[in-house]
């Protein structure tokens, strides 16, 4: 694997003195889907803007495909497609014209076949002659994506591509992203929807307060930081957790029919064996046992709390 985007010590202090990026180091592999997660104001958009030329970094370097984004901006930007977070489109222009404009702006010769393909992929072909102002919000977002794809980028930045998009359409977009990945495009997306990162990303980066807390393979991240719940269903209901089991931090649920034990998969010992023998020692009869991996959301909330603590 080779890195297509190399970010080294990237810093950004805005004019008002606010430090939005505090030294980011990140290598993005060719052909991967990287999801950037982080709360509002974490610096996700600032990071993308610094790579794409919207803002000027105050420190550090970024290269895309070996081109420095400041010194060799033509080389770098020619490879990049950007779908911004905000819906920003010329309201009175026809859909197909804005898409053609984007292609021209990036210096690509007109290619109607490609424009048609992009519009069809995004189910916008029927709307090609509609003016932007006549489109629904979800359609506008797809126009933004069409504009970014019009010039055949090798690296695609999607800043919250599915914000305000319904479930159906979100699935469609995920499919589009998967197709792009199959075509070799490297994709960086930011999202607030954890399930989105979980569903489509290869790696996940977590940003908070201008710092990259971690970047890891999705599976590894889930495993490393994953906490698991062990749910123990009982044959007979109990009123309270028996005194001798209190140190396990069990939670009584379902009107006394179930107990939940949370443990760290990473921990040296999970304590499950001991718990099970203590349960029978306490005279409880088990009906069923299930384990459940905690979602990224829970992992994420845990991380951010840790980071700010």
């Amino acid at each position, binding site marked *: 694997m080779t890195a297509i985007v190399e970010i080294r010590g990237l810093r950004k202090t805005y004019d008002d003195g606010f430090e939005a990026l505090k030294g980011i180091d990140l290598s993005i592999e060719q052909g991967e889907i990287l999801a950037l997660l982080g709360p509002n104001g974490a610096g996700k958009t600032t990071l993308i803007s610094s790579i794409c030329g919207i803002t000027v970094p105050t420190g550090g370097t970024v290269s895309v495909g070996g081109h420095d984004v400041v010194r060799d901006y*033509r080389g770098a*930007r020619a490879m990049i497609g950007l779908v911004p977070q905000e819906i920003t489109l010329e309201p009175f222009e026809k859909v197909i014209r804005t898409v053609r404009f984007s*292609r021209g*702006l990036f210096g690509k010769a007109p290619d109607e076949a490609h424009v048609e393909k992009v519009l069809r992929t995004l189910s916008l072909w029927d709307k090609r002659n509609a003016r932007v102002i006549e489109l629904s919000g979800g359609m506008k977002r797809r126009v933004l994506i069409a504009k970014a794809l019009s010039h055949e980028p090798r690296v695609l930045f999607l800043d919250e591509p599915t914000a305000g998009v319904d479930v159906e359409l979100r699935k469609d977009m995920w499919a589009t992203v998967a197709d792009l990945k199959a075509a070799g495009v490297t994709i960086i997306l930011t999202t607030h929807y954890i399930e989105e990162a979980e569903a489509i990303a290869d790696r996940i980066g977590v940003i908070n307060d201008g710092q990259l807390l971690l970047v890891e393979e999705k599976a590894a991240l889930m495993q490393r930081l994953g906490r698991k719940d062990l749910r123990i269903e009982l044959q007979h209901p109990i009123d309270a957790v028996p005194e001798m089991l209190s140190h396990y931090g069990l939670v009584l649920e379902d009107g006394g029919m179930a107990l939940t034990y949370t443990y760290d998969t990473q921990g040296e010992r999970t304590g499950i064996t001991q718990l099970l023998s203590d349960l029978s020692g306490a005279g409880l009869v088990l009906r069923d046992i299930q384990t459940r991996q905690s979602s990224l959301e829970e992992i994420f909330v845990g991380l951010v709390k840790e980071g700010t603590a």
Partner: protein
Amino acid sequence: MNWTAILAIYKFEMSRFFRTLLQSFISPVISTSLYFVVFGAAIGSRIDQVEGVSYGAFIVPGLIMLAVMTQSITNASFGIYFPKFIGTIYEVLSAPISFLEVVMGYVGAAATKALFIGAVILFTSSLFVELEIQHPIAMVGFMVLTCLSFALLGFIIGIWAKNFEQLQLVPLLIVTPLVFLGGSFYSISMLPPVWQTITLFNPVVYLISGFRWAFFGMADVPIGLSLLAIGGFTALCLVVIWWIFKTGWRIRS
């Protein structure tokens, strides 16, 4: 030089113009006609001739200049301010193009529109008065240079402006008065001596005078000075543009 990109911006800007072509065409025709009715008929009946040229013909270069300057500024400032305002500027900033290419696209389109309107006014005027242009090439050259330099100024204003008020402030408070006081509708020699001297500090005087020279072969100031003025003004705008480019002032945060 990324010509495809320059052309893309140019065409996109021009399409806005063509969408409202009729409107773009009619308003200069009407306003020119009004000027002729008011200035030509009312004042012209009192002032017969200015230095051997009928008053109606005399005001034509000034009329064209007035329109061309304000149109260049308005078109260019709006052209770059609007994408900043609605946010579509992100795409221009993220494109593999230099600032110079961005300027060429926007300023080129704004100047073209102004040139078109200048031509419409010239044509409309020729319906009211007899016009004989002594130096046609110089006339076209002057007009093109004026369109370009004022479109550059407009571009700078569009980048500088933080809201619509500021966008209109400079044309309204500075350019329009300078143009009106710059001898659009009178010869400087008609003013009292003190005012003649003061007027010479108005840069627009040199432009209008030079432009009038191309029409009638007569001028308030030597034609060389006029050329120097328009050249200097263009250079000044280019320097400011270059500085904006270097610093990313008010475009890239």
